């Protein structure tokens, strides 16, 4: 959690007190350096009539922290008391200004905005960012936003929610709509076997629900009905779908009853025999839940025990999460010797921060390749299995993002060859510490992850070498369209088949028409342009967020054609 300056000072004082009482002997041999004392706070604003804005002068953000126009009282849903004190809008804006100056990655590119020109905090925050663009023409800072803290806390504390356990791809959002299943969660209602048939499988097309035509219905009321059925509100809520499976025009009827569903990080682990040795295959969909640590370690142990000689890591729907688990995964791929004394990722903050993390006030130590469990869901210190590979095949789409890209970059940093099969990744080498102030949680880019070679400039994503994209970090591999005709793990599935082909002879399948574009439904949601065709179907927030707010249509890269 972010630590404001007074807290850092107090923590340092406590530390000093402990050291002074003669701990002797190193006290546990912690692996990271103790926090460095923070710089002394700036003097308080002068004058007795409250703070004022002075162009070019940035007071210490801690002076304005929690000085709220509308202070909250009581405790939040995690039981922590609100820290708010009576303040003013000006103090909130001055906090935003100073906090941005202290922690924003591109602080020197932010205009010095006069708070007097603003009447609310969110518009002011929205303007406190760089206006630069990347080589592709995309906004350099595409990730700047805020939300009510109440919403932020509710989301991170949300229990498993009612669902069928199916992930949807909207290949066409307007009539004739095409809504498919990307994958189903193991053990969920969607994966249930009824009369010898799994309720939903990858590629299943949803045709109607409760008599409403999903493909052709034109009214907003119908779309609302469809959305309500796709995303049930309560456990036990039941809806009846007409569906067709890939490879057949026949239809069947499925009744699904919602259950409390948690996302499973690993949904498939298998060993694929080939003439040149066994190949491991893992579908790893999220680094976010703490269970991801154990699930990916268990999957890697399975493959290590099987003695696989290569790995196809399917990250096509993995939008990221915990960098520590990304580090562990990379270690398990590369093994001891390749990772010894190497950096998985260094968080690069703004230049003014020096070697201090400006958010936590601690020394900015690199993230190593973690070799053991860290205590998320594996016992702290438990050894991790390794495959000791010098090459890995990673399956990707535009939903392959953040911590998933950190795996690609971290491995490239130690000269493990990453062969990318699929499509250009989302391009997010950045991160932030969400920060509450006065009931609003702000996300401002604070660090860029760089690998052992000090490289982290992949804001336009990693792209397979045979792509026609003129931007992105070129990576060995093949452009292949996501394939909803075959199941994940089926060696006929296009991305996996291409990986096996590349492994076999170093060649790629023929480029599909319009290669370089990602037709996978996860991108094709909200930006459907033609309302005249009928109301567009949109995924609600959770799925949109999984996709890192990428709402571009098939054939686009982050909203633009290549």
């Amino acid at each position, binding site marked *: 959690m972010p630590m404001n300056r007074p807290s850092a000072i107090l923590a340092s004082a*406590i530390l000093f007190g402990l050291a002074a009482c003669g701990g002797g002997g190193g006290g546990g041999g912690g692996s990271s350096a103790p926090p460095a004392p923070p710089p002394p706070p700036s003097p308080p604003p002068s004058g007795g009539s409250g703070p004022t804005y002075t162009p070019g002068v940035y007071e210490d953000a801690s002076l304005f922290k929690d000085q709220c126009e509308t202070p909250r009282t009581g405790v939040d849903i995690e039981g922590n008391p609100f820290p708010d004190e009576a303040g003013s809008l000006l103090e909130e804006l001055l906090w935003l200004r100073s906090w941005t100056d202290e922690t924003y990655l591109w602080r020197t590119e932010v205009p010095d905005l006069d708070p007097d020109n603003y009447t609310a905090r969110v518009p002011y925050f929205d303007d406190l960012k760089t206006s630069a663009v990347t080589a592709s023409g995309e906004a350099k800072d595409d990730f700047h936003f805020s939300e009510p803290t109440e919403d932020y806390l509710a989301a991170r504390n949300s229990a498993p929610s009612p669902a069928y356990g199916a992930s949807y791809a909207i290949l066409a959002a307007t009539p004739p709509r095409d809504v498919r299943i990307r994958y189903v969660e193991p053990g969920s209602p969607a994966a249930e076997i009824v009369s010898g048939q799994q309720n939903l499988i990858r590629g299943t097309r949803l045709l109607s629900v409760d008599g409403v035509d999903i493909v052709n219905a034109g009214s907003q009321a119908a779309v609302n009905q469809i959305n309500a059925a796709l995303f049930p509100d309560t456990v036990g809520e039941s809806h009846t779908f007409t569906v067709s499976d890939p490879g057949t025009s026949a239809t069947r009827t499925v009744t699904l009853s919602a259950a409390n569903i948690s996302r499973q990080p690993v949904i498939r682990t298998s060993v694929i025999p080939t003439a040149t040795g066994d190949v491991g295959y893992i579908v790893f969909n999220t680094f976010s839940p703490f269970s991801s640590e154990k699930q990916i370690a268990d999957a890697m142990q399975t493959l290590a025990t099987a003695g696989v000689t290569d790995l196809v890591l399917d990250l096509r729907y993995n939008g990221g999460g915990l960098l520590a688990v990304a580090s562990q995964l990379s270690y398990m791929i590369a093994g001891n010797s390749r990772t010894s004394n190497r950096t998985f990722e260094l968080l690069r903050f703004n230049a003014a921060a020096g070697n201090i993390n400006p958010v936590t006030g601690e020394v900015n130590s690199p993230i190593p390749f973690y070799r053991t469990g860290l205590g998320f*869901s594996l016992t702290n210190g438990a050894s991790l299995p390794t495959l000791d590979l010098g090459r890995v095949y990673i399956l990707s789409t535009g939903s392959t993002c953040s911590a998933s890209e950190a795996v690609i970059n971290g491995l490239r940093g130690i000269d493990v060859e990453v062969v990318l099969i699929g499509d250009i990744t989302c391009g997010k080498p950045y991160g932030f510490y969400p920060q509450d102030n006065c009931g609003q949680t702000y996300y401002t880019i604070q660090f860029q992850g760089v690998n052992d070679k000090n490289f982290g400039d992949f804001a336009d994503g990693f792209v397979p070498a045979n792509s026609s994209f003129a931007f992105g970090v070129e990576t060995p591999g093949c452009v292949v369209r996501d394939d909803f005709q075959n199941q994940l793990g089926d060696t006929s599935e296009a991305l996996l088949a291409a990986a096996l082909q590349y492994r076999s002879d170093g060649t790629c399948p023929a480029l599909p028409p319009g290669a370089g574009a990602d037709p996978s439904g996860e991108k094709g949601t909200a930006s459907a342009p033609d309302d005249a065709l009928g109301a567009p179907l949109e995924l609600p927030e959770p799925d949109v967020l999984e996709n*890192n707010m990428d709402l571009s249509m098939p054939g686009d890269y982050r909203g633009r054609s290549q």
Partner: protein
Amino acid sequence: MKNPIKLILSAIATLNLVTACTTAQTSEPATLTRSDETTLSRVKSVLAEAMGRNDIRLGAGDLTEETSLTVLPPSLGPLETSSPAIPIPFDIVTDGRHCFVVRRETGEKYRLSDVNCVAAPRAQASAI
């Protein structure tokens, strides 16, 4: 200090530290004798002081077998796709009379009131 509750928690934590300083010269790794709800609740309450937050969730591990524990970070929000969060490890130690948790990265030590523990067998202790 703007937040009086934080101040109080910090003061309590400091007091615990001071107490620990006078008693922990010869501490050794330990495991808890029980890990029932009451015991864990007491442990979490000390850890809440140490961490300065109310909501404490422990990571994997059986505290009657392991000489360390981890405090999980808050769960990630859906937009935290590149999070440096990691669990905070603490070691469980005893001076023969009292039990303590020691924050591994800083050496800060907190007494576990009304919690029983035993020194770990040598092989287990060497694991930390």
